[in-house]
């Protein structure tokens, strides 16, 4: 699978869902759980199957306006691609 395109609509894969508590948000998946903090959490909370990858990027580029937008695109694209390989995210 290639990285997400601007039109991709990332979402949690079937069998993966949010769990834990508000202070300790986690993604639960078949083999385990992943604790999410900071940017990772901000990205995945936007992966609702509605927003496009382009929209998610522009929201986060606004939020982190001191960071090179191309770097944000590359980092988040790679993050989602890795989770897709683990079958935790689909897009």
């Amino acid at each position: 699978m290639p990285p997400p395109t601007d039109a991709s609509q990332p979402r949690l894969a079937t069998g993966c869902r949010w769990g834990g508590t508000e202070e300790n948000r986690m993604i639960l998946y078949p083999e385990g759980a992943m604790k999410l903090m900071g940017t990772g959490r901000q990205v995945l909370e936007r992966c609702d199957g509605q927003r496009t990858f382009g929209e998610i990027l522009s929201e986060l580029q606004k939020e982190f306006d001191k960071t090179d937008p191309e770097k944000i695109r590359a980092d988040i694209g790679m993050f989602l691609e890795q989770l897709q390989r683990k079958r935790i995210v689909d897009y």
Partner: protein
Amino acid sequence: MLFQPLAVIAEVTHRCPLHCVYCSNPTQLAAVSSELSTEEWISVFRQARKLGMLHAHFTGGEPLARTDLTELIAAARAAGLYTNLITSGIGLNEQRLQMLVEAGLDHIQVSFQDSREDAANWIGGAKAHAHKIELSHAIRRHKIAFTVNLVVHRQNLDHLEEMIAFIEQLQPERVEIAHTQYYGWALANRSALMPTRMQLERAVAIISEAEKRLAGRIRIDSVVPDYYAKYPKACMGGWGRRLMLVNPSGKVLPCHAAEVLPELCFENVREKSLEWIWQESESFRKFRGEEWMPEPCRSCDRRGEDFGGCRCQAFLLMGDDKATDPACSLAPTHGIVESAVKEANATAYVAKPSQASSFVQLQKLTNDLWSYRTNPE
């Protein structure tokens, strides 16, 4: 709390319609009359979540043999746990599957014994293969995560590529390719199941190629056989560190095989809380940490990674649950594993699956090769 349990393994029954020769259940199965009631299981799930656990893995035996399974899954999910059903699929039709999904089942893991029908039924000692295929198609019509589990061994490794191609067609998100681990029935049948080194090396190459080819479509998790490894497996992520197993009659164990250890007494959820058992019981504390370790583990750099290996294997092979796991190449007793490996490699003999229409016939035909798993009283 120094160690945080992550998951409860709910062995809800030892009854099973299959008789797999590689089954890791104890050869002393828990009697049907001793099984926990619905209410007792529900209490286990609530206690597990309260203790901070995140997953409930339903296994057995065959969990579907419990007529209250839907209720148990609903209760585990309501308690806040992620629910995983590990099953042969026998006893599941689309209607019951729908009920389980509605009850909140998150993930289903179906075992396949082979890609070839005769061989699969031969290993499982039951005519189950065709139903499993049908069920897999039904699973894909529902919103639920699907894993196929394939146990590999001497008798099926020669056509691993064919088995992977077969599983691809079932379209799971995940495949678990697990080499047989020698506990319970599998240990009794070890000589017929242990692969040759050549089979193993080919398997590693085939799996690595499949991982690349299927990346993004199917995730492959594979378990390497510890008899051929340099270091032992970190069994259960360490004794009493991550997991609690509740057996059909309510005994709480740190792992699937622990009941074989004669010096330990295991508590029962009918008498003690999960919290007390996790924190206070002698059985959970015995091999936690490093105090108990002998040399060479005690001064080994890897002691925090593999925790001295598997306590049950040390007992089963050496009669000493405090010894270094003989699977470790540094263990003074490693010779016993080396000679088993040597024996396995002395011949490349693979039995041919027997053509038989019934389990009884299969048992007769394969009498000399292995023992099929039986059912509890």
